[in-house]
């Protein structure tokens, strides 16, 4: 074997170890959804899952036998719908607004630019608790509590600074000359942006999009502050349906968690492709 081959094998072994390490705590949750409670926290442990079933999913979707442990139907489909609408729309808007902002910071020199940039970032540094009550009061005055709109607005504000950060970094890597040529050819700044720079920074925008989506998808504190009924409660907040004052249905909660994890995983996998095109884009700078 050549040195290169040995190297490759070592890399693969460490990659596999790494993935196992990363995946195990998460897979435990996924498997829990299919296992009977009696096995989950057994002592001594039952390491090889047995008696797997879809019981938790069945109960969650269609309702189950009478009982006190949260064995009734959970409005999963409403939660899923709310989650999808809120996350997708807020991600789209945040990325749109954030990309424009990132472009402004990357391409324009204006007085106090760094200070403004810093200010935008700082909006993210404010603890949610000092915002949650005033936002609640404001939103209840306008009447957008428990609506998709209210939550989307907050998520957009939450994700915009972040998107500006990421896209700013990516735009900086694109040579200015490219858009300057276009502008001398009579394009406005916006046109140059749209035709030249935007396509080139696809990968940066894609990763900003993934982040914004995942943050919205998994957000708990804000939604639990602004959502009240099935009109706007998301899957994440729905997790708490499996707790009551004194009891918890942990496998049930894991079953709902599977509903949260899988769409996010699929979406992430789909967007990964655009990250690959980042490779080509990186070559541009060359």
């Amino acid at each position, binding site marked *: 074997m050549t040195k290169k081959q040995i190297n490759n094998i070592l890399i693969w072994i460490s990659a596999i170890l790494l993935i196992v390490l990363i995946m195990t705590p998460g897979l435990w949750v996924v498997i829990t959804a299919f296992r009977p*409670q009696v096995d989950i926290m057994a002592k001594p442990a039952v390491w090889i899952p047995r008696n797997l079933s879809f019981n938790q999913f069945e109960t969650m979707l269609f309702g189950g036998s009478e*009982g*006190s442990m949260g064995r*009734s139907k959970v409005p999963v489909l409403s939660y899923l719908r709310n989650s999808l609408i809120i996350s997708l729309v807020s991600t789209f808007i945040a990325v749109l607004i954030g990309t424009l902002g990132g472009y402004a910071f990357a391409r324009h020199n204006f007085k106090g630019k760094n200070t403004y940039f810093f200010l935008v970032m700082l909006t993210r540094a404010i603890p949610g608790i000092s915002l949650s009550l005033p936002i609640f009061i404001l939103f209840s005055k306008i009447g957008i509590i428990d609506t998709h709109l209210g939550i989307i607005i907050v998520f957009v504000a939450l994700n915009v600074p972040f998107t500006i950060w990421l896209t700013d970094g990516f735009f900086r890597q694109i040579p200015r000359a490219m858009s300057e040529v276009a502008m001398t050819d009579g394009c406005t700044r916006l046109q140059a942006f749209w035709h030249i720079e935007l396509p080139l920074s696809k990968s940066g925008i894609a990763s900003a999009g993934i982040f914004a989506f995942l943050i919205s998808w998994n957000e708990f504190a804000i939604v639990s502050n602004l959502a009240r009924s099935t009109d706007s409660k998301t899957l994440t907040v729905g997790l*708490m349906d499996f707790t*009551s004052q004194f009891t918890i249905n942990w496998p049930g909660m894991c079953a709902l968690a599977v509903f949260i994890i899988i769409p996010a995983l699929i979406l992430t996998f789909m967007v990964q492709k655009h990250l690959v095109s980042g490779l080509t884009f990186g070559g541009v700078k060359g």
Partner: protein
Amino acid sequence: MLRLFLSLIFAASLFGTVSVKAETELWGDYNGVTLRVKLIGGGQYENLYNEVIPWWEENTGGKIEIVTQKNHFELDKEIKKDIASGNLDFCVASNHTSFAAQYGSIYTDLNGIMPASVLADYTPLILEHSTVDGRLVQMPRHSDVSSLYYQKSLYEDADNKANFKAKYGYDLTPPDTWDQVKDQSIFFSNPPDFYGTQYVGKEEAIAGRFYELVVANGGALFDEDYRPIFNSDAGIESLEWFIDLYNAKAVPEGVLNYLWDDTGLGFASGTIAMNLDWAGWAGFFNDPENSKVAGDIGLIRAPMGSGGLRTGWSGSHTFSMTESCPNKDAAASFMWALTSNKAQMIEARGGLSPTRPAIWDAIIAEKEAEGDEFMLMVFETFKQSLSLDAFTPPLIPEWIEFTNVLYPELQAAILGDKTPEQALETASKKATEIMEDAGYF
């Protein structure tokens, strides 16, 4: 415009073979009325809404609009925010006896709104617990009190009996006092594989457990003016019970981080001999799908403290009506429906403890007829606990805030960071500040 019907109906055939004593019904014609309501969500609680709401809508012509349906603690936060933002545009909300005092006067006094004949159907003691400053602010839905679950086989084992008698000089039977619980827990423990008992170790949970033990040991948290008096012999004795079990490793070392889910799952794992817990877990513990101790569970009333009282920290889930509700008659009718015989029977079948004597009789009769000995034992034990032992925490708005200064001190004493005296001294000082700020003295 709206008529209020009061009628007595004998509902002998309402629940199949089992007969339920008559109740006073509170129907009315509420055509065109929409009630906005905020309800506790979660699987355990939602069965009730799914059945009662259509039933009420059909009989009254009114409509129910669920504004909120969320977890207990989230709902508490939400109501507090509603008060802060002056946004009380709902009529009926889930409430709890331990929480009710915090909400001030947003909820209306039901005396006078609820006919006396309706109130007569509920357990008087529970209605008393639902009263804050002489105002009946809530209708009880179901009650909670703890009883002691234990693994039966441990007490039937001949070796255990003989060894225990030899070591402690009295017979091994399910414990009647907390001192016996301590002895037996230490006796059964084999850490880290098996523990005698466990307790919830944080937040309101441990504060409540400490409180009930102080009472059972003949002490009290506050005097009549709400001056803290728990830094007393009874207070020290109670705290030492927690400390002794912890030091003897008769409880898992992690208990200080346990809440109700941890203790429930722990007992179900079969690694705990005795577990003081709520009625809600009974069905879970006896289900072989969920629990290793299924079929091997005994249940007795909570043991006694040195003052001769049993620990009976108790609370009830309730419904309250806002003062700002524009349609109080309709709201009263709906609250009655949510806590009526029919409603309570639904919840009792799910294992929750009813607040009407008639339903206790009915559910016990039903379980007898079904031959379900386990659930029969559960209902009979909890019936006794609730009628004989139950008491509420002080029904003051500062209760939760008080528990937040108490519990870190209890934990510090249990971990040995402080002596019990120091811990109770500090807690007492902080509690005095809270009470002073609140203007009690």
